[in-house]
């Protein structure tokens, strides 16, 4: 029985395939390359901070490296990683569909992503921008560095995420299998649905504001030029209107993966299906109300600061209810501790630990001290690396048999997961203390008193980097020497495991009819 990896294996058949599984794998490869590139830049930053003075690069280079690290990680890896790679692959199978609603649009979305990345990387090769991934005006409008290609590149990438978002929403609405009621839709599909809503509604505002900065920089139109009456805080309003929901674009798919992995490895019905699905939409909507907490000290009015501070607290409770439900699902389950669940534990600890510091930062007066210091850097790395990256690794291991038809070495998985956790914690926990000590972020030189913590953090970054490298090695190794995986290696009841691994070109032989919910572990299998 031929799988989607099957007969046509020419490069052309892959690059122009409209099969959602192939597009998912292509996205997986592309985003992994971008993760590695962004990771190398991060290691360079950490090496630079070994000594207070110049270590391996000049200030101008340092500013470019942290900008490109930000741009590559946010737009080239974080945002497309789980939705475009695993979402593309698994969502249609989970819904029992043969493909996404608009397959050609899906391929266009991949090519727009490639085009956007090439334009952005052209800016990198040219000499890169030194404005930070936030492009704050007026500096971004005045800098002599190559900020234009990166602005245009990210503008193009924005449309790739919008098209993927449209595809997922329409697929979820129109291509559900026979008799699949809304209550039997897997939780990962709900997470992707919520993510797609944010992608479709927030990304256009980013596209517009980056275009305005490009007009300011290139044509001198002065939307935000103080000399001609421009108000720089308005740029921040528009930028953060996108960028805060963007962090929920990054974390919601991760939460979807965690829900799936917890239910599969605990072999248990989720403590409350409705709570997880509803809180996804809670986060998606309230996420749009809270962008002002990035601007408490930016010169915003006190009234607005009050409004945004209070609203930010509501987002935290939806994440809290999800964590409560996950841990509750473990209660009286039949838990087998495999690598995906190990990564979910790392996620649980780091996400809750990091998320709580988010609540702390949102109580307004503390933010005055912490804003733009390493405390905030540590907070969002706890959520992005500790949350999304660990969930991405969990998804990678969880669906590896389904995507490649091979099993990875379980022993190596657990060892690397521990190394990832230790490396991560040693890298970013000291940055909380640096932030408390008052070290501002994006500082090339720093005071000697902060050096001890920086050295510790750099050591941690090496461990984290090597853990990632080892993961790549043993996964690649499993591609060739790994033992064959049968259809359902984890004994999961979720729909994507009902077809063979790797799945046939049209996902199922014949049209699938799902008569049971994806989480009915309280019933004997196949009933």
């Amino acid at each position, binding site marked *: 029985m031929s799988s989607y990896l099957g007969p046509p294996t020419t490069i052309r058949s892959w690059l122009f395939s409209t099969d959602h599984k192939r597009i998912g794998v292509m996205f997986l490869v592309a985003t992994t390359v971008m993760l590695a590139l962004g990771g190398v830049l991060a290691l360079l930053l950490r090496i630079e901070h070994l000594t207070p003075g110049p270590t391996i690069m000049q*200030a101008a280079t340092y*500013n470019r490296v942290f900008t490109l690290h930000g741009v590559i990680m946010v737009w080239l890896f974080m945002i497309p990683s789980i939705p475009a790679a695993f979402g593309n692959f698994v969502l249609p199978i989970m819904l029992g569909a043969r493909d996404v609603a608009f397959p050609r649009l899906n391929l266009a979305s991949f090519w727009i992503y490639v085009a956007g990345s090439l334009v952005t990387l052209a800016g990198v090769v040219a000499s890169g921008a030194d404005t930070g991934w936030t492009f*704050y005006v*007026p*500096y971004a409008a005045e800098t002599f560095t190559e900020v234009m290609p990166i602005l245009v590149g990210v503008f193009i990438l924005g449309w790739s995420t919008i098209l993927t978002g449209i595809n997922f929403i329409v697929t979820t609405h129109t291509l559900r299998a026979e008799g699949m009621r809304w209550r039997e839709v897997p939780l990962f599909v709900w997470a992707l649905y919520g993510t797609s809503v944010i992608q479709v509604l927030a990304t256009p505002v980013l596209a517009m504001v980056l275009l305005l900065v490009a007009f300011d920089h290139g044509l001198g139109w002065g939307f935000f030029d*103080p000399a001609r009456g421009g108000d*720089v805080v308005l740029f921040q309003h528009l930028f953060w209107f996108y960028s805060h929901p963007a962090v929920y674009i990054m974390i919601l798919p991760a939460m979807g993966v965690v829900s799936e992995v917890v239910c599969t490895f605990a*072999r*248990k*019905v989720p403590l*409350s299906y409705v709570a997880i699905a509803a809180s996804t939409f809670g986060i998606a909507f309230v996420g749009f109300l809270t962008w002002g907490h990035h601007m*408490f000290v930016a*010169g915003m009015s006190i009234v607005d600061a*009050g409004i945004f*501070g*209070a609203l930010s*607290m*509501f987002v*935290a*409770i939806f994440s*809290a*209810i999800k964590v409560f*439900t*996950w*841990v509750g699902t*473990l*209660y*009286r*389950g*039949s*838990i*087998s*501790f495999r690598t995906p669940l190990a990564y979910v*534990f790392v996620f649980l600890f780091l996400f*809750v*630990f990091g998320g*709580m*510091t988010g*609540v*702390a930062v*949102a*109580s*307004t*007066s503390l933010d005055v*001290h912490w*804003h*733009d*210091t390493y405390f905030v850097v540590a907070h969002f790395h706890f959520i992005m690396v500790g949350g999304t990256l660990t969930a991405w690794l969990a998804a990678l291991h969880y669906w590896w048999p389904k995507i490649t038809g091979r099993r990875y070495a379980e022993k190596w998985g657990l060892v690397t997961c521990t190394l990832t956790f230790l490396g991560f914690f040693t890298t970013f926990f000291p940055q909380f*203390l*640096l932030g408390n*000590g*008052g070290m*501002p*972020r994006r*500082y*090339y*030189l*720093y005071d000697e008193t902060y050096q001890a913590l920086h050295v510790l953090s750099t050591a941690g970054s090496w461990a984290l980097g090597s853990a990632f490298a080892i993961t790549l090695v043993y996964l690649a190794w499993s591609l060739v020497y790994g033992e064959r995986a049968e259809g359902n290696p984890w004994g999961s009841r979720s729909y994507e495991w009902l077809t063979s691994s790797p799945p046939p070109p049209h996902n199922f032989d014949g049209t699938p009819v799902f008569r049971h919910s994806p989480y009915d*572990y309280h*019933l004997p299998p196949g009933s």
Partner: protein
Amino acid sequence: MNELFRRILWLPVQGSTVAGEVDALHYAVITITMIGATGVFAAALYFTWRYRRTDEAALTPPIRAPLLLELAVVGGLLCLFLLFWRVGFQQYLRLQSPPADAIEIYVTGKQWMWKFAYPGGQRTNARLVVPAGRPVKLIMTSRDVIHSFYVPAFRIKQDVLPGRYTTAWFEVVRPGVYPLFCAEYCGTGHSEMEAEVVALSGADWEAWIAGAEEESMAAQGLEVAARRGCLSCHTLDGQRHVGPSFRGLYGGVRQLIDGEAIADEAYLTRSMMEPAAQVVAGYAPVMPTYLGQLDAGEVAALVELIKSLRHPNPPPPGVDYPPIAPAAPTEAAP
């Protein structure tokens, strides 16, 4: 206890009156959240060990959380978080409202240095000298890009925006030297924009202020007024000329052609920027606008000059006036 927490969390010394309270909220929030986080993780670990899979074919009970329990968790956490916000926002309000009797110091951030101007006319670079024990209000603007005035020891931070004024205030508790950073990325020299706040005790402060009396703001205002041609229409000795005299102008009620206004700083600066908006009765609206020609320092100096002339006494020495031009053909005042 406070010192113990402060050292564990690596917080700098509590230099300002507000720092103590902010840190108290900091300790409360961090302790509660960390206990919560470790509790959640411990529960997960315990469940994983306690309910580890022993029999491959085992089925698990379909436990569904009662809605009440969920609402309790959500409600409880929401109340806790909103409590954090309430206390935090109250402190934020205090941080954002400088006391009335604060000394005003003008701060100008420019690419990669801080400049400070005192009402008395002293100007310093990279060294903000302030009295300990008295509130200090900073009126800040930027010459080029966004900077951010950040003194970790005082737990205060305020972005400094080009084309706009933002304020911050603090009251230093103990004399000493406290580092001052720029917290908003502003280019290659962002990390070199370091400066320091030097807090002096009462006596030293008076000595410093007196000693550094290079040139008072009012004297500078006089020089700007001469250079910018203000004196060709406005006299300093109360005598009427093309425009009203500066003497006795500040603080009085001005009879305008359409109503009246108190001559405070806002009135003075508006008269410079939009002269046609507030024309004094009996004078022709011939004054040109100085919009975009005067920089912050010059306007501040002019205002100080006018403020220094509010008492109707003899003019400062060494000032000669150009001859009064024949009265311009002013149309009859309406």
